[in-house]
């Protein structure tokens, strides 16, 4: 069934994509089937997974649903799915919000453009992949789904592909998350190899302690940070806001960006005490939470405000889950639920405003008419939950977070982290208020047109999903007992040793409540003094503007890679044959020479046949001549002379067949050479020598020396091999078995006939090829068809004549 759910997403997604644009916005109705099915299924599984126990009594006795399928088990690649308590939380987020977003999208895309249905299909595929991430019990299976979410996110961000900014944002997103993914893959391999298993559930029971695991931890965390837009990898998330709002609401606030948090949550109980885990997660989370909050406070675009708010909240979640303390993690579970609900609702409200008013800039909003009241109320409630005001779910979560941190944060630096959380929460309060004030029109600038007052109010269906989520926020905030069993089961799933406590709205007067009051108080102050605060912030950001930002860093990195590539390619890929040959010959000459020198042995006799001496003199003289002469024909004749001298060598050596062949071939080659050379200019001049003469000379000498040494080393090594040459047996078998007296011929046609077969094939090929080339200029003659047009397959050179055609081959007639 687990697999079936995933496959259903795949099937529905592919079906929608396959139908093209025919479905229009109804595609989202089809797409809604998948999350609806998942939610329904999750509800049926809930009682079993959560188990009977309630929060207060400690361990949950829920039984996870699991499924396993081998993919490439030798590599440890297998699909292990497992639905446990925490999985259930994530599934309800992914599919619950997914369902809401699908319904919402039907309203959002009331005037569908081409490509709308594609969004629905890709979103379904994404939902499937995201479910895979949260259901995988196997680290590599998790990675597979993880990357699938990156790909679908890339396609979704860039869906409006004519918009260069969409393409740019998509590229940035996939490069950053892709880079993180790769690093993470290496980390996962390290962890898996040193632990001997990739199963999270097994890792939980036997945490690895190997030395290299510290490196693996860092790698995995880099992946998690990029995915969850943590500093300094967060730059892609604001850019991703070019995607349509339903997509942003779903992927870039509620689900995909939580994948990193999810992974940290899963691994923290296993690895929190390993290597630099806590230092890394907590410092990165802290920086992210504060910077995200600060930036959110400065945005005028509501959507960007929410995006930075999301980054900040993700940092918060990192701080909670990353500790590896189940008490704190329990609070984080509440928080992740709360965040999913209110952030999706807020995005939906922004989408409604954008859709109906045509802007998201708070300077262009001047307050709404009375028909908008439900929308505004929804927005305010959701923002209040984000700000952590009672009695909403956001408050419950934050309160519990502060409380658990105060009580159980007994590791080094927990006090600092607590401080960061308090400061971050103040900022959260401030930007939540900014959102509300913006929605109410407080930032409206007089010289901008007032379009918001008379804008159409959204239809009930359009607002409905946001309203439902907000009602849930209120309801669960008032009665947190409703989620208590789920939270308890999730906590137990994260850490089997956990004994979760109860989630309460009112936990009595304690330090956490005091901090909450402080947060709200300072938050109110920030809001009241927002103008001076903004000035202060601007001055501060000007002061630190010399510090390169993450976006800047990304662009510089990318540009330096592309520029560097061009520069490097310009150098190594010169396009010039002589230079290529120079490099190749140098390598060929020098590489084997180095080991050969170590095997250098005694010299063989200087001369073994006196007759070799005059022949050698002839060869050397002719080959030097061929390299020096300036006339083509002379050079060809010199080459012929070398060939004839070679034939002499063959005769001396006792190889008449070879000599005969050499003689005939040399003659023919010379004739044919001359046949071609008669067309070419008689003398050659090096118009632009590609390789300077000294270098040419050096490489030539090096090649010669190398061959000399190699030949002598090879000859000197012969004695160390005991067996005789294989030709001895050929000589013995030639006459009696192959019925031939000329052993060379017997070898050619019988012993090694396959060589000869290949050889005549080469002759056929080169003959055919030579004729084809030589006659390419007059294809008509050869083919009997008017072939000239299409042979060249769309290459530019064969278009019609261009006016200033360069001189044609006329001079040759002179």
């Amino acid at each position: 069934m687990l697999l079936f759910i995933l496959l259903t997403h795949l099937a529905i997604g592919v079906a929608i994509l396959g139908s093209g644009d025919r479905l229009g916005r109804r595609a989202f109705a089809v797409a809604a089937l998948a999350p609806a099915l998942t939610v329904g299924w999750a509800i049926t599984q809930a009682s079993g997974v959560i188990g009977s126990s309630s929060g207060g009594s400690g361990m949950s006795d829920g039984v996870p649903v699991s499924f396993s399928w081998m993919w490439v088990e030798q590599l440890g690649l297998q699909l292990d799915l497992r639905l446990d308590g925490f999985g259930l939380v994530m599934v309800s987020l992914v599919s619950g919000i997914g369902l809401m977003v699908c319904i919402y999208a039907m309203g959002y895309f009331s005037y569908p453009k081409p490509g709308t249905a594609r969004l629905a299909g890709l979103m379904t595929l994404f939902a499937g992949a995201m479910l895979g991430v949260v259901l995988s019990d196997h680290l590599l299976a998790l990675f597979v789904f993880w990357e699938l979410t990156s790909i679908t996110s890339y396609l979704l961000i860039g869906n409006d592909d004519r918009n260069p900014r969409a393409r740019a944002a998509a590229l940035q997103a996939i490069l950053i998350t892709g880079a993180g993914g790769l690093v993470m893959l290496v980390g996962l391999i390290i962890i898996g190899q040193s632990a001997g298993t990739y199963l999270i559930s097994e890792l939980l029971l036997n945490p690895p302690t190997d030395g290299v695991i510290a490196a693996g931890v860092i790698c995995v965390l880099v992946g998690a940070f990029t995915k969850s837009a943590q500093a300094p990898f967060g730059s892609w998330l604001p850019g991703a806001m070019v995607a349509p709002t339903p997509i942003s609401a779903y992927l870039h606030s509620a689900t995909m960006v939580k994948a990193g948090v999810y992974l940290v949550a899963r691994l923290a109980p296993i690895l929190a005490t390993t290597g630099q885990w806590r230092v890394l997660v907590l410092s990165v989370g802290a920086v992210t939470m504060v910077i995200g909050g600060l930036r959110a406070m400065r945005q005028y675009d509501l959507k960007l405000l929410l995006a930075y708010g999301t980054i900040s909240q993700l940092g918060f979640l990192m701080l909670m889950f990353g500790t590896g303390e189940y008490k704190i993690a329990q609070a984080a579970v509440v928080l992740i639920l709360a965040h999913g609900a209110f952030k999706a609702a807020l995005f939906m409200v922004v989408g409604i405003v954008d859709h109906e008013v045509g802007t998201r800039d708070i300077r262009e909003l001047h307050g709404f008419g009375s028909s908008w009241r439900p929308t505004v109320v929804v927005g305010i409630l959701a923002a209040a939950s984000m700000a952590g005001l009672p009695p909403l779910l956001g408050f419950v979560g934050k309160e519990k977070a502060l409380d658990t941190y105060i009580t159980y944060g007994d590791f080094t630096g927990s006090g600092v982290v607590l401080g960061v959380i308090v400061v971050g929460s103040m900022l959260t309060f401030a930007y939540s208020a900014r959102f509300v004030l913006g929605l109410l029109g407080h930032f409206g600038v007089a010289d901008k047109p007032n379009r918001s007052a008379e804008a159409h109010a959204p239809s009930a269906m359009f607002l409905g999903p946001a309203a439902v989520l907000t009602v849930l926020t209120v309801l669960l905030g008032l009665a947190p007992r409703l989620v208590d069993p789920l939270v308890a089961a999730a906590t137990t799933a994260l850490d089997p040793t956990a004994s979760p406590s109860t989630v309460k709205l009112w936990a009595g007067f304690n330090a956490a409540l005091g901090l909450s009051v402080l947060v709200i108080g300072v938050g109110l102050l920030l809001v009241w003094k927002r103008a001076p605060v903004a000035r202060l912030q601007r001055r501060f950001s000007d002061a630190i503007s010399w510090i390169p930002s993450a976006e800047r860093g990304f662009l510089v990195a990318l540009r330096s890679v592309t520029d560097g590539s061009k520069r490097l390619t310009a150098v190594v890929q010169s396009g010039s044959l002589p230079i290529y040959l120079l490099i190749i010959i140098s390598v060929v000459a020098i590489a084997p020479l180095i080991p050969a020198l170590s095997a250098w042995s005694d010299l063989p006799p200087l001369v073994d046949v006196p007759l070799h001496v005059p022949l050698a003199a002839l060869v050397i003289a002719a080959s030097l001549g061929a390299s020096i002469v300036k006339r083509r024909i002379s050079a060809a004749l010199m080459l012929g002379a070398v060939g004839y001298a070679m034939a002499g060598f063959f005769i001396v050596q006792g190889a008449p067949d070879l000599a005969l062949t050499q003689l005939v071939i040399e003659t023919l080659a010379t004739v044919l050479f001359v046949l071609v050379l008669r067309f070419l200019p008689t003398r050659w001049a090096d118009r632009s020598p590609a390789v300077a003469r000294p270098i040419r000379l050096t490489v030539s000498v090096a090649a010669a020396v190398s061959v000399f040494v190699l030949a002598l080393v090879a000859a000197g090594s012969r004695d160390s091999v005991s067996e005789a040459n294989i030709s001895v047996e050929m000589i013995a078998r030639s006459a009696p078995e192959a019925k031939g007296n000329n052993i060379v011929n017997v070898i050619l046609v019988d012993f090694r006939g396959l060589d000869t077969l290949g050889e005549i094939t080469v002759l056929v090929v080169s003959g055919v090829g030579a004729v084809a080339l030589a006659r390419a200029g007059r294809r008509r003659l050869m083919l009997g068809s008017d072939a000239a047009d299409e042979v060249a397959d769309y290459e530019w050179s064969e278009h019609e004549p261009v006016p200033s055609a360069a001189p044609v081959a006329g001079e040759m007639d002179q």
Partner: protein
Amino acid sequence: MKRLLVVDTSVRVVFHSILVLSLYFLFAGHNQPGGGFVGGLTAGAAISFRYVAGGVAEVRRAFPLRPWTIMGGGLLIGVLTAILPILSGNALLEHAAWEADIAILGTVKATSALPFDIGVYLVVLGLILMMFEAFGDDEAIDEAVGASVRGDALEADSVVSDLFELEQIRELQLRRSRRDQL
């Protein structure tokens, strides 16, 4: 082309004697120096005589079969000698041998290596013929060059005759793209 009777006749005589020599090389190759390669190449040398005497037309007259066919046929014979033994359950290229005592000639040995060598011979012969077709067909070459001067058959290719001037090519491409935009 003006042709001298003496040259013509002597070339034909020489031509045929060299051809016979090449056949000797072919058939004797299994036991003495020679073989398909040397035979074929020698025949090629004979062709070059004909070419000197009368150009490519003379070569065509000497071998009315198309070089394509000769080469393809040679390769076909070669491959068949390689494959046929497989069909009869032997190894690739496994040769059979026969010996017979004939009164006058003494013991005559024939092996199936001979057809293989014939294939080699034909391929080499065909190759040489093709080379003369390719490089020796002066009339056709003149025609092609003429065409390129007139600017029809080769016009596109001759445009890039000055490949060395990159800027020119760049300009060409730009002009072409502009033309396409119009």
